């Protein structure tokens, strides 16, 4: 994407800025607090998303944590579903669908995700809010940073970091609570008895939160976010972007409110630079579309307020598309959007169908490798197997096992029915006995069938081999 389509002077100035920003040390961005429609939307998004993050892990369903990626137990509990490592394809599928949704969303609405829903934005908003509560507004923060170290500055700075660290630690604890049951984790925390790896990952995630939201901030978007770099592949001229209306704003300049600026040859931009001051990534939106722009609309809110004060119409900076700014008709449905949409619907349907058809039962048949076969005193041939039964259903079931494939095959197991609790794996040894005269080949196929006694539709078949002497030849 071209970083700017500004004409002449502006692009030279912009190139200078790029040079300077590449060579200079990062200058800290002090985003000015902003109020308005989009700021309110963002605060709402932040509250909802953080509410979900800090809250959902405490919700329970049917006596189990509603959302728990139980890594130690190798089971994922997702809204009443229990997923096992064998269900890995579903998870991959879901991630692909999530990525495609992001593509579709980006093609239509640009970087709304970045400005309102990205964890980096969400946590940075909280950290900025905490910072403002402790250090004061933008002016006060800048003044404080410039001032020499005094007891007061030390107190303010250390309070800020203490609050940030406390919040980060809680965040890290919550994060780990999605991987080990959080109620147990909480009681162990209170007893100061966390496991070494739980402690480590709490601190690790807490540190990542503190570092990314407190220190790195917009640098994460600029240097680490892959989305910022490849978004241009998903954008087109109809994608919703935030744009400064150059035709209306230029030439910019300060003026008295009473001045008839049109007759004085000025555009609507009063060059107050508030749009730059509120920008969390520290860019000037008036220089054109830039990859650093996370479309948070802080500049839209800020500029609208200025326009209101000047009695100019709002929307000098607004959500629009390149076509709309250029006067071309805006289109929502276009090949790109239709293609993304069709693929997405297809994948979602495929996932839905395969989840609906999923049999939450696995039977693995492992033949004893120590002996090919043995002969019983009665002259029968016997093979030994281990059956691994994975009951992926949430309910406990009694199962019956049967076998077919060889005439007169007899199944011996030490228990019947076979009880397997919901979500459990059971290995049982079984023996098959066959009259050697019914064997056609030294190696025959047998089919084991496992069926829940209380639910005939919960059944699964697995093939195995039966080895014996070849008497018939």
């Amino acid at each position, binding site marked *: 994407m071209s970083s700017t389509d500004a004409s002449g002077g502006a692009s030279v100035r912009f190139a200078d800025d790029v040079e300077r920003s590449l060579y200079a040390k990062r200058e800290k961005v002090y985003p000015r607090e902003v109020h308005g429609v989009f700021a309110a939307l963002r605060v709402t998004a932040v509250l909802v998303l953080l509410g979900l993050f800090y809250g959902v892990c405490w919700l329970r369903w049917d006596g189990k944590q509603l959302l728990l990626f139980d890594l130690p137990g190798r089971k994922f509990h997702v809204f009443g579903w229990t997923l096992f490592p064998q269900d890995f394809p579903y998870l991959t599928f879901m991630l692909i669908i999530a990525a495609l949704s992001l593509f579709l969303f980006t093609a239509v609405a640009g970087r709304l995700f970045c400005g309102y829903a990205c964890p980096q934005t969400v946590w940075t908003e909280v950290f900025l809010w905490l910072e403002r509560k402790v250090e004061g507004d933008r002016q006060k923060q800048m003044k404080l940073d410039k001032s020499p170290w005094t007891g007061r500055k030390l107190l303010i700075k250390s309070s800020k970091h203490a609050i940030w660290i406390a919040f980060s630690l809680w965040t890290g604890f919550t994060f780990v609570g999605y991987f*080990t049951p959080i109620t147990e984790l909480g009681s162990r925390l209170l007893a100061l008895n966390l496991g070494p790896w739980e402690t480590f990952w709490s601190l690790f995630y807490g540190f990542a939160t503190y570092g990314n939201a407190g220190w790195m901030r917009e640098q994460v978007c600029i240097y680490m976010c892959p989305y910022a770099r490849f978004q241009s592949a998903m954008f087109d001229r109809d994608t919703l972007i935030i744009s400064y209306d150059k035709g209306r704003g230029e030439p910019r300049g300060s003026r008295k409110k009473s001045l008839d600026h049109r007759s004085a040859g000025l555009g609507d931009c009063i060059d107050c630079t508030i749009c730059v001051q509120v920008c969390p990534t520290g860019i000037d939106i008036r220089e054109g579309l830039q990859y650093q722009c996370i479309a948070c609309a802080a500049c839209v809110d800020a500029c609208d307020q200025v326009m209101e004060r000047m009695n100019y119409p709002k929307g000098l900076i607004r959500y629009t598309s390149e076509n709309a700014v250029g006067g071309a008709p805006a289109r929502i449905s276009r090949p790109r959007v239709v293609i993304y949409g069709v693929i997405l619907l297809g994948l979602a349907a495929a996932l839905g169908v395969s989840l609906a058809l999923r049999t939450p039962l696995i039977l693995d048949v492992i033949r004893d490798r120590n002996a090919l076969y043995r002969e019983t005193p009665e002259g029968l041939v016997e093979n030994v197997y281990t059956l691994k039964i994975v009951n992926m259903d949430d309910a406990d079931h009694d199962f019956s096992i049967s076998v077919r494939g060889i005439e007169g095959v007899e199944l011996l197991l030490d228990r019947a029915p076979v009880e397997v609790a919901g979500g459990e794996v059971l290995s049982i040894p079984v023996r098959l006995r066959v009259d050697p005269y019914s064997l056609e080949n030294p190696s025959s196929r047998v089919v084991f069938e496992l069926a829940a006694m209380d639910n005939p539709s919960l059944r699964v078949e697995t093939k195995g081999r039966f080895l014996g002497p070849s008497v018939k030849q």
Partner: protein
Amino acid sequence: MTTYKSIPRVQLVSAILWPSFLLAGIATSVFFTFLDPVRLFDYEGEAPLSRMAAYSLGFFLFWLLCAASSAASAYFLRPTDGGVYSANDSA
């Protein structure tokens, strides 16, 4: 034009550590989906590592390997025309 010399240190470090972090995450998930560490090490009853420990160590091992690869790429991307390649710590 951007020259190699002008890459900020934070960008260089991020470019090595961050993609390798993501890839290590993917590699760890795929690896341990198919291999249960407890079964892998379970010779005689007691496993020497808990699953959490095995996952964590596995993750850091993958991260180290991926980061080594990224670092080697970054190293070989230095211009060969005698240009100086260093992250600028100061302006």
